[in-house]
């Protein structure tokens, strides 16, 4: 990492190239699948996908150059700003006479709920960074973070966007867990949530969401209706077999049997053409990414850095996990895209923000590897 080493400037050579190559590989594979999904065309998905990725990769690298203290200082302005935007979405939506998730700023459209995923993680980590260790286990260690989480979660649930709500809560809860709150709280609240699920199913879910749940439990009952997505996805993956039908040869995707083959079900599109090999390779790529994120977390010297890196890493994990489970019929269809493979700007922005901040934490000069054996 020496600045005197060769002709490459230190700013360049000091970049975390291994992770950048991994990201480029994943995004390029995504573009390849999107190219096939468009019947062998760069448009309308593959080219924008690549361009968006490159811009956001650059943005992530820029973010990584800011010191961690900057992010710490910016935590609440960011959280507060995103929360205001969520409220703004609600107001604009109710004025416009319909629910919406977008905030149109004129030059671009922002989905504040996406930004809230990293923002909530930052805010909760910030809180536990400040909380004296001795107070961990008191109610004071629980209530403020719970509030920080409940406000955006409630606003996003109103939109209604169950998938994003769960993603926000998941990231926050992981930070709370890692912050050292008593285990009992988690087991108890876990049991409570399990008990509340049936109640929530009947009273909190929209009919279309209820249908997704029942379909998830028995997709074969409704092969042409709500179960169609899941069945066609399983057909695409299963018929791909070990090595797939070959690039551009997928029938499920090209003949439009697989719905959302370029967004939520992009993994099925991929698996049909690349088979089990392609699927395991993709999962391995995600494994490398998450392993990197968790290592950054464990290697970080600051408590804030540790909690933020792990929380953001788990936010990415949440995307991957829910999407893959959905695609393989292990979770209801909730509309969560697969990072780097699915076409779509908002999720990629969220993921790249997470990665930019994790890279910033990795850049922390104070390495305290020696402290943990």
């Amino acid at each position, binding site marked *: 990492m020496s600045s005197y080493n060769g002709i490459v400037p230190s700013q360049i050579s000091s970049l975390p190239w291994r992770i950048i190559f991994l990201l480029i590989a994943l995004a390029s594979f995504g573009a390849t699948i999107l190219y096939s999904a468009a019947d062998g065309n760069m448009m309308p998905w593959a080219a924008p996908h690549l361009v968006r990725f490159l811009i956001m990769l650059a943005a992530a690298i820029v973010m990584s150059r800011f010191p961690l203290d900057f992010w710490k200082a910016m935590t609440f302005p960011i959280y507060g700003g995103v929360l205001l935007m969520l409220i703004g979405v609600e107001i604009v939506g109710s004025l416009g006479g319909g629910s919406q998730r977008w905030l149109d700023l004129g030059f671009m459209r922002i989905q504040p709920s996406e930004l809230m995923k990293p923002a909530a993680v930052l805010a909760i980590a910030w809180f536990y960074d400040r909380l004296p260790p001795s*107070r*961990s286990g008191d109610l004071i260690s629980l209530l403020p973070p719970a509030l920080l989480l409940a406000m955006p979660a409630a606003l996003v649930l109103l939109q209604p966007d169950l998938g994003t709500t769960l993603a926000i809560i998941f990231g926050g809860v992981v930070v709370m867990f890692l912050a050292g709150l008593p285990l009992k709280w988690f087991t108890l609240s876990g049991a409570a949530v399990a008990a509340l699920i049936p109640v929530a199913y009947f009273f909190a879910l929209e009919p279309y969401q209820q249908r997704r749940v029942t379909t998830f439990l028995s997709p074969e009952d409704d092969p042409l209706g709500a179960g169609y997505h899941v069945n066609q996805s399983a057909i695409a993956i*299963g*018929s791909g077999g070990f090595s797939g039908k070959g690039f551009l040869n997928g029938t499920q995707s090209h003949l439009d049997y697989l719905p959302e083959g370029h967004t939520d079900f992009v993994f099925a599109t991929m698996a049909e053409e690349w088979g089990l090999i392609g699927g395991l390779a993709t999962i391995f790529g995600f494994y490398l990414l998450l392993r990197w994120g968790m290592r950054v977390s464990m290697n970080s010297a600051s*408590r804030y850095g540790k909690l933020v890196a*792990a929380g953001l890493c788990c936010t990415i994990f949440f995307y991957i*996990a829910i999407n893959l489970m959905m695609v393989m019929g292990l979770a209801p269809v909730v509309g969560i895209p697969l990072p780097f493979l699915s076409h779509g700007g908002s999720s990629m922005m969220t993921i790249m923000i997470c990665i930019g901040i994790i890279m910033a934490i990795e850049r922390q000069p104070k390495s305290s590897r020696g402290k943990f054996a």
Partner: protein
Amino acid sequence: MAIEPMIGRKKKKASIPMSAAKQEFSFTRRAMFVGGVQAVFGLGIGARMTYIAIAEKEKYTLLSESNRVNLTLIPPRRGWFIDRNGKPIATNRTDFRVDIIPDRLVDKEKTVATLTQLLSLDDDEVTRINKELEQSSGFQPVQIASGLDYEDFALISVRLPDLPGVSPRQGFSRFYPSGAAVGHLVGYVGPVSAEEYQKNRDPLLITPGFKIGKDNLERKFENVLQGKPGAKRVEVTARGKIVRELESREDTPGKPVKLTIDIDLHNYAARRLGLQSGSVVVMDCLTGDILTMASMPSFDPNSFSQGIGVSEYAWLREDRTVPLLNKSLQGLYPPGSTLKPLAGLAIMEQGIPAEETVFCNGGYTLGNRRFNCLGRHGNINLADAIKRSCNTYFYTMGRRIGYDKIAPVARTLGLGQEFDLPFTSQYYGTVPDSEWLKRKHNREWSSADSLNAVIGQGYVLASPFQLAVMAARLASGRQLLPNIVAGKSKKTPDLPYPKEFLDVAREGMFRVVNVGGGTATRGQLPLDDVKMAGKTGTSQVTAIRRDGRRSSEWKYRDHGLFVCYAPHDNPRYAAAVVIQHGGGSGAAYPIARDVLTFIYDKEKAMETLNALESSWGGTIEQRMARDLARYRANKAAEENAANGAASDSDEAGSNGETGSNEAENET
């Protein structure tokens, strides 16, 4: 620290304040736990995918293929009906049809409107098309029109770029070259009904363009004629768009069925019936082969097979000559004097010599009732009684032996019998006897019943087909069984009557035609070497005793009948002709004469027919087309004007009048 609270309580972790170092340690453990959960999850998802892609690959590959590949059946070409000489009776002709693939329609209303105009579809059709389009889904085609000629097909084809979703196709449709002449013989084909599909859910049945036999031979030989469908495998998108054709298998056409029919003779007979309503049946006396079984007027099976129009069907249904009834097998008529040779057999069977005479003074008195004869025949024996159709002889002898002795002979000769034939329906008719009357009408048989029955009136009813069988059995002396499939004739035993008896009956029938004073001397064949023998019959529609008041209205007129065979000395062909309300046997025997002439001398017979047809106003097709047009015009007029009903009945009356002019009246 208080001691007391400590008693019985263990120290809890939570009670010790968390230190920064402890927190770091806790973090590491928990972070490893979180990482572990992620890793386990990754392994789980990998295992799940492996299971789907390896263990269930076969199942999902099959499902993927059934998604991708759409199997279209190609209806098999139907087996032909050919006549005994291999000439076609029912074939398939190239057919152009136009379908709409609902999924590919852009503007439904506009497309249907354009097609309606191009093909000049009527309102019935447009209603049907709109209804079917509404109910259809995906890429199952909806038929717009079938049986189009090449002109219409080309008209649509050149406009295809402006008509997305319209699919002109070439297929096959059933074709009956003889048209209406064979309507009752072979039946017709049609699309499968909902009930038929309920019974057998073969996808072929609902393939557009596929038709099954609906009546008579077409229906009975369905299994032979149907054949095996071809198939076309195409790759389709989820929305039903065809991407490419994968492979196709040719259909296996159905097997032909060779009939005993001589189609030229059959057509001749049908045409020769002309304006009359009636039936001609010709049988081979050696084998029982049915050579001709014509029933006219009839329907055009080509129209039925293409889906008959509402108005054409109404026209057929409302016609008083019942064109929808197969008169050969289902028309039942009092056979009249055609039963006299048969009665003669029964009389001789009872030991009465053929030479014994009866004095005919122009009638027979039973109690205070007079039964009339056709004339005063004086002393008359059996053969001459047949020749001159003397009722008095048969009244006398019939009463002497009783009808219960005659009925078994009638049955032996085929009356009242049903035959093992591949037709959907045959009517037995009635051969009455005392036992039957008791059962049916709870009444004792009287002498008057015998008198009526012996001359083929009263309760006696027979179909033209049964009369032909009777003639063939009399002529051959064998219990011939009628047969319609070539090469399937059965060996049959002789009739249980002595040859001398049969010879007397045949001699009487010979004299009917060939000896002066016979009732059908003008029925002689215009041939030098072939002589015909026969028996006339005129059967009253109204009861004979109310003879005095006879109406000239068509439906009260007598039926004309004639049974015959030729050559008289070595019988080969037997025939029966029945003319419904023909006015008398004079309407029937000239037809029999010409039909039998056709067998021996086609040119001579055609000359006669051509002359007749020009006086009738053309061939069957031409006359039917004209009648239908007139019917439609009348209907339209009726609908337009409230007082249009009168013109329709005038029309019907004139039809019957023309028929009577043709009859050569006997006395």
